[in-house]
């Protein structure tokens, strides 16, 4: 039995097809594009995983950025290639072999590589060749359509060397301009420029003062000025900042830092200034200029795309959303991020777990599922559920009377039970009898004075020796 290989599977219309296969599978007659059913019949113990092209692209992007360590000119070659212009870089790493070894180690994947004088030649050699001779490459390296390639092969032209020895005009007439252009690029007769990634210049601004700045207000004015400059830079690049850092350098080498984060990208200096003032207010010691500030620098650490916006007559709604976002930012800075939150639904079974609080700054509002035909839920949940003393019939009756906080409540009306099982699938050993936790029977009850409660018995009679009752919610 051959060793099991792996493959990535993507849905193509109605069929599941192999999108990519690994080295372990290649010898077994599997190819990318084959349906999963065919592949399984040839290789029953095939290990599959879903294909995620977005993650692939992101990973390629990450690799390209990591390659900046070797050369400033890196171009991604989608879907799975990288072009590095290492002109003048190899000697820094002790020669080309050493450079290649390091690049492959940094990439961390099984990779093929080739070195050539031109990007197109190196690319063709890495993808289709084995040696260093571009003339020995198969015609497939031209990446033409399948019928043109078979036309070339039928004409007896199998390598690029065969093509190169023939007049180009005839090739162009028969197989198209593209074929000639690619051939000339691979042979080095035409240029094959790459468009390297340009790492965005970080937004850092600094002001140095001839004399130390002794007043906090002046320092704040300078910061506002820096923010205005940063806003202009960000406006040009259509960016907005999410994290701002202000570094103040005092003459006695103390460097207070002020950092603020926003929930939405912002450019407006006034908005950032408000957050900074909030931050200064929360400092245990106020911003003390001491002997004065020598320099103040501002860095926008995290940026996001923020298109310019035209102020329209009908922009009232957006303004409102902006002002709530700004308020959320301010309160998050003052109170802490986890103290300004939103309710989000969670796909859980127990009522207290079926929702969660997430910081409002990080989470956009999520839509809640439509209330279905489920029994109604209370408006408020008591956290934790409050133990109450109850008089109730056994085994399955609503309570008749209960005592909470020293007050006796006579139950006038009751509805239930709504049985909510424990989440046995989340517990170790939950599938074993008695391992799941207690089943809850919820009742909606109304006492003699008209107050409505949500009360539950934790555990069934027979499951637990002495089930306890808890108050879990209030209805209006």
């Amino acid at each position: 039995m051959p060793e099991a290989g792996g493959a990535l599977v993507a849905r193509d219309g109605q069929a599941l097809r192999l999108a990519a296969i690994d080295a372990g599978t290649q010898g077994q007659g599997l190819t990318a594009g084959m349906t999963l059913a065919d592949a399984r019949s040839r290789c029953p113990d095939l290990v599959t995983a879903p294909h995620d092209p977005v993650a692939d692209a992101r990973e390629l992007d990450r690799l390209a950025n990591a390659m900046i360590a070797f050369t400033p000119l890196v171009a991604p070659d989608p879907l799975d290639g990288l072009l590095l212009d290492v002109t003048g870089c190899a000697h820094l790493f002790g020669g080309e072999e050493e450079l290649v070894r390091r690049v492959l180690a940094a990439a961390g994947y099984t990779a093929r590589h080739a070195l050539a004088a031109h990007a197109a030649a190196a690319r063709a050699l890495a993808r289709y060749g084995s040696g260093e001779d571009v003339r020995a490459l198969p015609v497939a390296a031209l990446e033409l359509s399948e019928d043109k390639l078979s036309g070339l092969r039928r004409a007896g032209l199998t390598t690029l060397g065969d093509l190169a020895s023939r007049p180009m005009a005839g090739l162009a007439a028969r197989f198209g301009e593209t074929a000639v252009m690619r051939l000339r690029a691979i042979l080095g007769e035409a240029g094959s420029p790459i468009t390297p990634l340009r790492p965005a210049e970080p937004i850092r601004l600094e002001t140095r003062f001839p004399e130390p700045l002794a007043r906090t207000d002046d320092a704040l004015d300078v910061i506002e000025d820096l923010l205005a400059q940063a806003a202009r830079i960000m406006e040009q690049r259509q960016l907005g900042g999410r994290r701002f850092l202000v570094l103040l350098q005092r003459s006695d080498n103390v460097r207070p830092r002020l950092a603020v984060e926003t929930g939405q990208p912002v450019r407006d200096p006034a908005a950032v200034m408000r957050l900074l003032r909030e931050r200064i207010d929360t400092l245990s010691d106020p911003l003390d200029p001491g002997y004065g500030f020598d320099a103040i620098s501002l860095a926008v650490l995290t940026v996001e795309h923020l298109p310019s916006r035209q102020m329209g007559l009908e922009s009232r709604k957006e303004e409102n959303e902006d002002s709530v976002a700004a308020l959320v930012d301010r309160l998050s800075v003052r109170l802490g991020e986890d103290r300004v939150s939103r309710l989000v639904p969670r796909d859980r079974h127990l009522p207290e777990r079926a929702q969660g609080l997430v910081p409002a700054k990080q989470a956009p509002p999520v839509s809640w599922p439509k209330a279905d035909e489920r029994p109604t839920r209370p408006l408020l949940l008591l956290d934790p559920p409050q133990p109450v003393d109850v008089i109730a019939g056994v085994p399955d009756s609503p309570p008749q009377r209960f005592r909470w906080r020293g007050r006796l409540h006579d139950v006038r009306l009751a509805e239930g039970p709504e049985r909510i099982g424990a989440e046995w699938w989340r517990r170790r050993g939950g599938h074993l009898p008695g391992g799941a936790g207690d089943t809850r029977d919820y009742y909606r009850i109304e006492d003699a004075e008209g107050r409505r409660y949500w009360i539950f018995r934790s555990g069934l009679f027979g499951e637990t020796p002495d089930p306890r009752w808890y108050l879990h919610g209030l209805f209006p």
Partner: protein
Amino acid sequence: MFQNHAPSSAEPPTDPPVTAGRESLPRLAKGQLHEVHAGGDGWASALAFSLAAIEADDRRPVLLLRVRKDKGRTRAMQMEPCGEGWAPLGLDPARLVIVDARDDAGLLRAGLDAARCAGPAAVLLESWGRLKEYDLVASRRLILAAEQSRIPIVILRGDAEPRASAAHTRWSVSSAPSTPLETRAPGAPALHVELQRRRGGPGGLHWRLEWNEEHGGFREELIEPAQPPLDHPPTLPGAVVSLDALRTREPLRRIA
């Protein structure tokens, strides 16, 4: 709900028009400060009333401000809104933004910031006990902010004695017995609401509100003042100071 009394948003912030005798329940108008008193047991009722009676746009966020001591230090009972329970009362829980202040002073400060912001549909402040920071000056500040931003501010006061304040209305809300269903099950939400004080109008009016399952919204029914329910003393101390609703003079200043 309460359509018959909804002033259009173009009007300046005025008190609800005063008509003697039988009248419909005034809404918690925009640009005003409203106090809602309730006990711990009736907290859900107070919230439901505030959200239903508030005069607000129904897509913008609603801010709920409350006090939470540092987590982990306290094991006291807390009341968390239950998203699934809000939706049937016509409020999308996704609109809710919850702000946890550390203490009462922080609550009022955050409330003032929120009141100055025109973005939210309404601002609800949950407070418990005496709330000594809440006085004439603090309430007047909230009103000035609300007049600017044209949003309603509701301060929910749990287990608290009414205090002198500049609020436009003061309500007391509790649960009322519901109309039982056929199976002796509790019926739709029902509230007992008392308008204790109102600036420029008579107070001491009682209503019974019952949720209308078919159409949404509360159906109201005026209870004759002659028979106040037993658990509500007819008069309560603490006056709403009469101030002009439309500010024609200098702002109120603290006199030492």
